[in-house]
């Protein structure tokens, strides 16, 4: 029972309850169970408003794809809206729209997920439609012929006509020499051109089974009612073995790789990526917690080191950021990107030197106590703020479960970060921020024809 529920139990205790209710790390009531067919279900109660989000996460994404078949997971996601036994092409969207639901889907390296946000009394409709397309997707060839054109438009819009997105796609391809993470989620254009609906059918039959999925429900519901509905609609979907899937492991030290990409930009910029483990692949979880803390120290807010020093102090860059995703199924990447300050005549070399100064300092000098306190305060508050959105709560749960971790990690986040010592940070910086692990992209304006 959580603190709020305890409070509700007796009004007389309200003053005593206050400290509990105000406690940031109070877990919300969350229940998990698995249906007989292997579908894992996680239900988190949030009774603030009579709404609910339902998400189905499949363990398949672009990192599962092989050369020549890139973009299959994403294309299949599009085709999941093109009809199953109970609804014709596009009909499920219309049904949900007429009920006032928001629905969409997304695909990444590690997962493909579908969601509906709707008034709580309509949850059964979301389940019935989602279960139906899990089991009986039609994949009509004439629908595919049109939808692949939409996907190519999407690729032109998001990547080909976006110079920085195009450069990032090339960068990723060299940053992951061994693992499937080098594949762009939307797929290479050449593969979209030759994609066949039969390949999608095979992909669907291989991966879209209840035992390869997680159903996450967050909102104004009780676990018992969700369980009954899940058993009614998803329960009859048969279990089937899925192909063996292996974590995308990367070379520890692939060696320094560098590409220069000329794109339609006026602004030179650079991307750095260091090959590092994730929480799912690390033999030593403490190194991953240290990398997460480093990421917060570098770019966890406007008072972090990159904005304070590179953007405002030395004015080396007009913009820069760092990012580390610890929640990936395979080995991850610690990335830094920067746009040199042209008005101040700063070059890519100046920006790189500034980045290395920050990285080398992490190797030798422990962070100040106040800096660590700020990170802690942000994490504590962030755990509360995240609870304002049922969708972001569900997404965190779904992502953790799908990459092979447990949703329970949410409630251990603070403790994990607090356990990191200054020595852990220095050790991680020395281990991972080396040239042998580094991929670099220089993104430059196109050269005029001679």
């Amino acid at each position, binding site marked *: 029972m959580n603190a709020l529920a305890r409070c509700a139990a007796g009004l007389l205790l309200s003053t005593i309850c206050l400290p509990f209710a105000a406690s*940031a790390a109070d877990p919300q009531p969350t229940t998990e169970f698995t249906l007989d067919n292997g579908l894992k279900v996680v239900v988190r109660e949030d009774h*603030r*408003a*009579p*709404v609910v989000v339902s998400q189905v996460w499949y363990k398949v994404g672009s990192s599962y794809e092989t050369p020549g078949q890139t973009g299959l997971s994403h294309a299949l996601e599009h085709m999941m*809206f093109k009809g199953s036994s*109970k*609804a014709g092409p596009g*009909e*499920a969207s*219309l*049904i949900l*729209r007429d*009920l*006032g*639901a*928001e629905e*969409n*889907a997304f695909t*990444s390296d590690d997962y493909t997920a579908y969601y509906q*946000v*709707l*008034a709580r*009394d*309509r949850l059964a*409709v979301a389940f*019935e439609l989602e279960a139906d397309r899990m089991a009986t997707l039609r994949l009509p060839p*004439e629908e595919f012929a*049109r*939808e692949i*054109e*939409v996907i190519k*438009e*999407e690729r032109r*819009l998001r990547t080909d*006509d976006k110079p920085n997105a195009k450069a990032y796609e090339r960068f*990723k391809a060299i940053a992951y020499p061994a693992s499937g993470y080098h594949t*762009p*989620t*939307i797929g290479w254009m050449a593969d979209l051109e030759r994609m066949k609906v039969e390949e999608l059918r095979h992909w669907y039959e291989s991966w879209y089974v209840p035992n390869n999925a997680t159903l996450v429900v967050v909102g104004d519901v009780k676990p018992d009612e969700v369980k009954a509905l899940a058993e009614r609609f998803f329960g009859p979907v048969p279990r089937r073995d899925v192909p063996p899937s292996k974590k995308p492991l990367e070379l520890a030290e692939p060696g320094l790789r560098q590409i220069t990409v000329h794109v339609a*930009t*006026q*602004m030179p910029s650079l991307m750095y990526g260091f090959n590092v483990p994730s929480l799912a692949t690390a033999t030593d979880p403490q190194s991953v917690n240290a990398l997460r803390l480093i990421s917060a120290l570098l770019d*966890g807010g*406007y*008072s972090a080191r990159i*904005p*304070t020093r590179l953007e*405002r102090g030395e004015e080396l860059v*007009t*913009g820069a950021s760092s990012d580390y995703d610890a929640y*990936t199924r395979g080995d991850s990447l610690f990335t830094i990107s920067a*746009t040199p300050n042209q*008005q101040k005549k700063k070059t890519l070399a100046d920006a790189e030197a500034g980045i290395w100064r920050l990285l080398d300092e992490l190797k030798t000098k422990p962070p100040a106590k106040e800096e660590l306190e700020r990170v802690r*305060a942000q994490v*504590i*508050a962030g755990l*509360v*703020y995240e609870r*304002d959105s049922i969708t972001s709560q569900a997404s965190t749960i779904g992502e953790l479960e799908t990459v092979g971790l447990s949703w329970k990690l949410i409630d251990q986040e603070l403790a994990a970060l607090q356990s990191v010592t200054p020595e852990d940070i220095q050790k991680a910086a020395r281990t991972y921020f080396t040239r042998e692990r580094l991929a670099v992209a220089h993104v430059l304006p196109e050269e005029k024809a001679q």
Partner: protein
Amino acid sequence: MSQRIESRFARTRACSFALAVTFGLLGAGSAMAETAAETPKAIDKAASTLESLKELDGKAPARRSLNIQSWNTAEGARVLFVEAHELPMFDMRLLFAAGSSQDGANPGIALVTNAMLNEGVKGKNVSAIAEGFEGLGADFANGSYRDMAIASLRSLSAADKREPALKLFAEVVGKPTFPADSLARIKNQLLASFEYQKQNPGKLAGDELFTRLYGDHPYAHPSMGTAKSVAPLTLAQLKAFHAKAYAAGNAVIALVGDLTRAEAEAVASQVSAALPKGPALAQTVAPTEPKPSETHIEFPSKQTHLMLAELGITRGDPDYAALSLGNSILGGGGFGSRLMTEVREKRGLTYGVSSGFTPMQAQGPFMISLQTRAELSENTLKLVKDITRDFLANGPTQKELDDAKRELAGSFPLATASNAAIVGQLGAVGFYNLPLTYLEDFMTQSQSVTVEQIKTVMNKHLDADKLVIVTAGPTVPQKPLPPPTDKPAEQPLGVPEH
């Protein structure tokens, strides 16, 4: 940098009745009324196959009731407050009539003033301010648009966090010091953004569209200004802008969260007292009707961006409910709208197409926007124009309207589901001086709208012959459109006939 692709088309429908600063929707009619009529809506067919639909009672769903409390501070700021004790946090949003429509002769001054708020207060530079908020776990955010400039704070509600966060927030918004070195840096960063925009055909087309639509009206120029207009801005100009535009009388305070009424009053008083003293600024004048035009921007992209627009409505327009439903049918509701059905679903021409009214203080735009491969751009533009013309001529079907009403009622609970959503609603109600019952009124009005009414108001505000059109993309030989899916081979290539 991990990549996540929202595969379908992000829609703006959640805003359809909302007051958010963003888009309203425009309903569009579909390619052909007759097409719509001969294709029964999915929900009817599916009702016979889906058990769960049969079990629904057809009633509008329950929603979180909002008790909006409102008062004015001693200095004249309007406050709107909703008490929500479920989470130990609160959200505050200050909205000033201090957007780029107040720029006058200095395009960009509103945005730069807003960006300078957290660059310095007495005894603290920009880094110390950032450390102050972040050390408390508080989020400060700011932004500047055409009508409004915003400063907001999200904080834990415990007194040891709330009080110092509010003190710092009040100083930042009310008594910024405008350091010279910060101004130089922000100008540089803006110059970099202007350079960056040159590679974005959608942005170039959007800027051109506003110029064509608004002429010399204050909405015409981009909120960011231009390289030429931002460079000469002085500290004295920014300070003067702040003194008049960030005055308490020109502010609305929206507040949601774990506060009692007494605490909320104290919070609002504290912030209001820190602001410069002064009255509300004059309302933005009405724009004059633009001449219809078609402008092309040559750009070496793979796709051509298409934007079609007319002047739309003000936020207080009594036709808004009917227009919003009409728009939702034409192109506002994402999948199922006529534009999405005809352009994407039946022909695969685009990833996304949408239409929308953006009601603003003065008439905001009505806009349709999409992108398609360059060689199909001319015929796609013609198709979109035909769909719009047809919708204006014939209106929606009764079925389309019934479905749109049902959708609106069904989505109502989502509009007040989180503190973040509520603070957005309160801010817009306050800023546009709408009644506290606005959300309920909008719902009630919407449910009584008729097909005839939609047809009437759509034609009152829009005219297919008066579109202002901007395209951006490469000039390439044009190709005919593929045939629509539900009308195979016997149809000639090209757009449907009327």
